[in-house]
């Protein structure tokens, strides 16, 4: 057997392993039975209808959307600052600082969650709320935003900004008139990715939500009731669809950014 065939079989097996569980989600979400098992018993949308009528779930989704939106905005703003500083001329300790900023990317989430809980409750004595989750999610998402925006800023010819200043713009004017439009695809991509990460993040949210759970935390709560499992499947189906759409849009914008800057795709983040 040739090396290419082995590689092909490996790739197919890998993809099945990766996506088969996800494919099960919509299958059982539309299955007209409480029990999650084959054979299927018929098509039904009643689990989606059950979702619709659930007020507690509605609140959880609302919380999650709010947290995800705020997280996306905050981490993208922080990412813009960091990426811009990184793309500018060297300053003392630049690589060290940038390294530290990227650290949350590899820290186990459970450690972030526990230490944040201790800091917020024991040290600062704050009430847990949506804002504590937003703060923690921003911490988690900022490295992703930086990674995406770094690409956008570093692809930018530094003399473009100076060119705008040379033609009469102030530093801020040059940033708004040429830098921002050129890194906009990166910004959109960062917003979408941070939004997606925050939306389905569980561990940190589980530790840091107050009385009002986020959607993943609410779903986890549902799992104790077996008859609710198909509802969870329905919700999962919607989430998967939403995530795919958001990530596709993010990737589209990232590629468009590269095309605009006239560059070849060098792998990228996704």
């Amino acid at each position, binding site marked *: 057997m040739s090396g290419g065939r082995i590689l092909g079989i490996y790739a197919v097996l890998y993809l099945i392993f990766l996506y088969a569980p996800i494919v099960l989600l919509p299958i059982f979400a539309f299955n007209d039975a409480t029990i999650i098992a084959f054979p299927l018993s018929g098509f039904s949308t009643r689990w989606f209808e059950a979702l619709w009528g659930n007020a507690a779930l509605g609140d959880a989704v609302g919380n999650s959307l709010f947290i995800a939106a705020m997280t996306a905005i905050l981490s993208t703003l922080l990412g813009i600052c960091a990426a811009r500083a990184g793309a500018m001329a060297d300053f003392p300790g630049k690589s060290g600082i940038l390294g530290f900023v990227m650290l949350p990317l590899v820290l186990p989430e459970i450690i972030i969650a526990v230490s944040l809980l201790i800091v917020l409750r024991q040290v600062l004595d704050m009430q847990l709320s949506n804002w504590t989750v937003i703060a923690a999610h921003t911490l988690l998402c900022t490295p992703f935003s930086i990674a995406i925006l770094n690409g956008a800023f570093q692809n930018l010819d530094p003399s*473009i900004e100076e*060119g*705008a*200043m040379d*033609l009469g713009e102030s530093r801020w004017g040059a940033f708004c008139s040429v830098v921002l439009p*050129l890194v906009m695809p990166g910004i959109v991509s960062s917003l979408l990715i941070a939004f997606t990460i925050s939306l389905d993040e569980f561990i940190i949210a589980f530790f840091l939500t107050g009385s009002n759970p986020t959607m993943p935390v609410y779903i986890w709560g549902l799992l104790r009731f077996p008859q609710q499992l198909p509802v969870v499947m329905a919700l999962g189906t919607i989430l998967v669809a939403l995530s795919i759409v958001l990530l596709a849009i993010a990737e589209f914008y990232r590629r468009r950014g590269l095309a*605009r800057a006239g560059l070849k795709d060098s792998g990228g983040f996704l």
Partner: protein
Amino acid sequence: MTALIQLRGINKYFGDYHALRDIDLEIKQGEFFSLLGPSGCGKTTLLRTIAGFEDPSAGTLSIDGRPMAGVPANKRPTNMVFQSYAIFPHLTVAENVGFGLRRDPRSKAEKAGAVKDALEMVGLGGYGARSAHALSGGQRQRVALARALILKPKVLLLDEPLSALDRKMRELMQVELMKLQRQVGITFILVTHDQEEALVMSDRVAVMFDGQIRQMDDPEAIYTRPRSREVAAFIGKMNFLPGTLHSSGEGVEADVAGLGRAMIPPDRVTPGLGSGPAVIGLRPESLAVLFEGETTTRRTVEGTVDEVVYYGDMTYYDVRIAGVDEPLNIAMKNLVGRDVLEVGTATRVAWDERSLVPLAP
């Protein structure tokens, strides 16, 4: 008349690195001035200092009599054509060219007219609606020029504007740039590492090495009367022979290895160079090989052809003469009916005192 641009004692440090050393410079209104030097010698840094993108560590800069300390780039009467052209890829050609007019109080129609004129001036009439990121190198360069010139700056700064173009395009643009400069009457400061480009285009050339200006002169003086061995070697080809100078009441006499004694013409005497050991430079085209039966009134020395490089219009000969290690490089025009000498041929090399460029050892 006072100079349009004055630099006094400009120094620039990047950390410990001394990038510009004691630059004194005066450039007149309407002059085409070139900064010429090898890569890394500080040309771009000097240009960026004039543009306002670098603050000098010491020294003063004034443009049109106005001190520029504390004046940011966007408030200076200079515009720059960047080495990468810095075209804004998200805008059209016309939007690029009109970019600097955004704060201009003129009406929209007037500005559109100015953009159109500027595009026509650089030969891009009708390209206004095109997207800027789809342009070729030469077209980008023209857009960068139009974009800067439309603002009628007192000084146009050009950082290696032709280095990204292929040879044909470069020669074409050299001529166009010279025409354009005469047409608009704006002072141009051109940065280049290409000596030919500097000599062809400029009224005056400053040759830079290691952050210092080593010589500032018109192109002819730079070429025929270089003041140092470094400048002589950087500008064109030059043979160097060891020698001694004797300064006396009658003038300066050189004793050149392999050639003998000769008086240096008074206008060729390098200022500040007294008696003692020296290096004598000879341009390849100031020497000639003599062909079979040819006679000359110039002085001659016996030699043997060591190497022949044929260029079509020219032939370069390396000729060995007694008493010198390195062969002499000699450039000969290929006249009709004249053969190219073969390697090993015994010949004579013609020279005279006007061939000699005395330099510090």
